[in-house]
């Protein structure tokens, strides 16, 4: 029937894996915002949860690196990382293969997504799922944008991906909730791990919340890398959310929590 919900949130292994090392007050405020996002997803009564992520060489490598990929499996597994390290228990996630196939066929009319009948979720999807679907009750459609291996997906195509998801969802009888997850500025797994450019993050989130397409698409990769690190390339997932929802965004939570190695973000966007 429609795209029923659009939200954004951060992912990072530290959010769960190093939970006990964060300032408890900061951690709990962030977790509470994620809980609020979970309630909002539930209230939208989706038939499936689509998660647009930016995975980290767990399923996709430079032997066949898709600009976009959408899952079409009957089920998925995760986390691919050590569950004790990530502090997220393994789970089998139900897919929605028939719905996926119809969604993919529709998206393909304008965006050339790869499809994948299997997918081992890394923390990029497992951390959001851990908070948004603690009971493992939703059917999930995973999606990916190449934010890792250059040549990266151009920003304006990430926007087009959001538009294509919107058009596809609106033409389907099912209700889709869309969660887009990325890190904004961060320098994951490099000597600068823990660095966060809060000013850059707030500027990006402001462009996002006011639905300023031109400003969101104006970053060059070199600028993003300089100011926001490799992790900044993941703005593509938030841009896809904006392309799908097209309304004003609202940031429910932002705080740089260095031990989580990311500016911890939760937001929603009006679907217009």
């Amino acid at each position, binding site marked *: 029937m429609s795209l029923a919900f659009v939200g954004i949130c951060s992912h990072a292994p530290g959010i769960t894996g190093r939970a006990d090392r964060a300032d408890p007050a900061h951690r709990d405020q962030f977790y509470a915002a994620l809980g609020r996002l979970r309630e909002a997803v539930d209230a939208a009564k989706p038939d499936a949860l689509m998660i647009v992520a930016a995975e980290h060489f767990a399923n996709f490598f430079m032997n066949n690196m898709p600009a976009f990929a959408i899952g079409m499996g009957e089920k998925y597994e995760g986390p691919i990382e050590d569950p004790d*390290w990530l502090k997220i228990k393994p789970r089998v996630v139900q897919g929605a293969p028939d719905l996926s196939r119809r969604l993919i066929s529709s998206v393909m009319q304008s965006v050339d997504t790869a499809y994948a009948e299997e997918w081992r979720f890394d923390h990029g999807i497992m951390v959001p799922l851990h908070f948004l679907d603690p009971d493992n009750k939703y059917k999930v459609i995973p999606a990916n944008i190449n934010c890792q291996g250059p040549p990266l997906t151009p920003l304006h195509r990430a926007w087009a991906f959001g538009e294509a998801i919107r058009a596809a969802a609106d033409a389907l009888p099912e209700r889709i909730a869309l969660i887009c997850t990325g890190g904004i500025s961060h320098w994951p797994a490099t*000597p600068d791990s823990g660095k966060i450019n809060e000013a850059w993050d707030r500027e990006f989130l402001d462009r996002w919340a006011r639905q300023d397409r031109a400003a969101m698409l104006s970053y060059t990769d070199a600028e993003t*890398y300089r100011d926001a690190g490799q992790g900044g390339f993941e703005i593509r997932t938030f841009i896809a959310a904006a392309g799908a929802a097209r309304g004003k965004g609202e940031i429910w939570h932002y705080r740089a929590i260095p031990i989580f190695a990311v500016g911890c973000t939760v937001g929603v966007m009006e679907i217009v």
Partner: protein
Amino acid sequence: MSLYQLSKFLYEINRDPAIQARFRANPQSALEGYDLTDEERGAILEPDIGLLYVLGVNGQILMHYAAFHGIEWSDYLQRMRDGIKRHGPVRAGLYAMTTSLDEKVSS
């Protein structure tokens, strides 16, 4: 093709317990079929995490290889820093866009 082959070996050992077991039993044999230079081969076997970083391996791949060798997180970060001091700036890949160590903060 070398950074590709080097990265591919690390990508594959990260996600495949069978390759991990083969590496533990006989490191050299686990490298068969990958087109590597002697420097790359040595960096994998040592393991020289700092050199692997300087050769251009992405941290999203490298951190799992360090963990496989039991290298703790802070030690992993320090080895990359030491690698740059010893071997010079990152030579290829995404991080070759990085200019100098002094620009960076760490935690």
